[in-house]
């Protein structure tokens, strides 16, 4: 048992040591082997060094810029948007899961409604994914060495920024009394369509996987999805944060004539603008050459 535990400790130490520079990782790992420390002490010591190195990096301005420009504003927007769309999607999913019959497909009205539900969910998932990907790409661009700490902070904002708020779907329906539909599925939705694309964006930037020409195509996709989903993005803040404004000419909140704040659309697009702006000099250098 002791050997198993010490082996686990060494594995964790090796895992955490990947946050160090390669030369330092080798030297530290070698020193700990030579001193014949047990696995858990090795893990504790490496973790201590990694924390000191990370803390030293935060003395620079770049990690704070990433925090203020990406993590806090975009994490909050995506937190509200993902929760709102998860709740709306879960409403449709739970409804169809409970009352589904294949004969419904013979009715045009049902087919239209099913298409609407699927299209709404797919569009919401696609929009969240591309927005999150651009956030990850921008985080890795601004501060490469602290990107993983920033990504963890982003995740915390995404999962906790909506505490104390609710959504229209959640208020109106008692379908969420179940643990799976009320708690588990929305969190899976956020993990799959926010956190996974975020890490993919970080990885794409770090490994230089995306050609500049693809970035322009990607930006067009982001723009189209943003145009399609901007009312939902704005509504998620209005209903989630209680930013009620004017009810519009029909004097009813929640209808299409309500004036909505435009700043969420500007904020959600600024990683895309940043990516294009930084991609353009590279493209120009290739053209000039």
């Amino acid at each position, binding site marked *: 048992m002791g050997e198993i535990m010490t082996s686990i400790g060494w594995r964790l130490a090796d895992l955490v040591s990947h946050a160090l520079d390669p030369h330092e990782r*080798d*030297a530290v790992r*070698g020193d*700990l*082997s030579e001193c014949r420390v047990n696995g858990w002490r090795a893990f504790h010591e490496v973790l201590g*060094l990694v*924390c000191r190195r990370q803390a030293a990096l935060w003395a620079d301005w770049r990690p704070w810029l990433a925090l203020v420009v990406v993590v806090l504003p975009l994490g909050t927007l995506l937190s509200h948007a993902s929760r709102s769309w998860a709740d709306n999607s879960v409403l449709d999913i739970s409804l169809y899961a409970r009352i589904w019959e294949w004969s419904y497909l013979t009715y045009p009205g049902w087919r239209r409604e099913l298409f609407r539900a699927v299209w709404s969910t797919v569009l919401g998932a696609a929009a969240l994914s591309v927005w999150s990907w651009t956030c990850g790409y921008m985080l890795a661009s601004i501060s490469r060495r602290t990107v993983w700490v920033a990504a963890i902070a982003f995740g915390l904002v995404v999962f906790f920024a909506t505490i104390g708020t609710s959504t229209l779907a959640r208020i109106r329906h008692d379908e969420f009394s179940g643990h799976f539909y009320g708690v588990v599925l929305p969190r899976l939705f956020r993990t799959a369509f926010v956190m996974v694309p975020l890490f993919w964006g970080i990885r794409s930037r770090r490994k230089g996987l995306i050609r500049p020409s693809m970035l322009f195509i990607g930006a067009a996709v982001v723009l189209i999805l943003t145009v399609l989903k901007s009312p939902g993005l704005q509504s998620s803040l209005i209903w989630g944060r209680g930013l009620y404004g004017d009810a519009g000419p029909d004097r009813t909140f929640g209808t299409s004539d309500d004036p909505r704040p435009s700043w969420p659309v500007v904020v959600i697009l600024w990683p895309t603008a940043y990516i294009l702006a930084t991609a353009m000099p590279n493209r120009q250098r290739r053209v000039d050459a």
Partner: protein
Amino acid sequence: MLGEFEYLMLTAAARLGDEAYGAAIRQEIEDATGAPCSIGALYTTLDRLENKGLIKTWMGDPTPERGGRPKRMVRVTPKGVEAATSFYNAVRRVSRGVAWAKS
């Protein structure tokens, strides 16, 4: 003026001479102080001393007992010797006449 831990590291590295590297310095400090020395404190202090020009470090050859991993070798510079000497003399001067210095 050097810090206490910086002085311990300079002194340990000077005593070890050509054999001064991370694990050996760590062992020297632990033997002298009777307290554990963390890798985190050791490596961050090595960086600080190198930035001040008091030591030079480089990656040495890998050895089998280290699993084929290299060592981070350390050599105290003349400026480091001067700083350690200054610290030692200051400690001696300020300790004159105190009870624990007499013993």
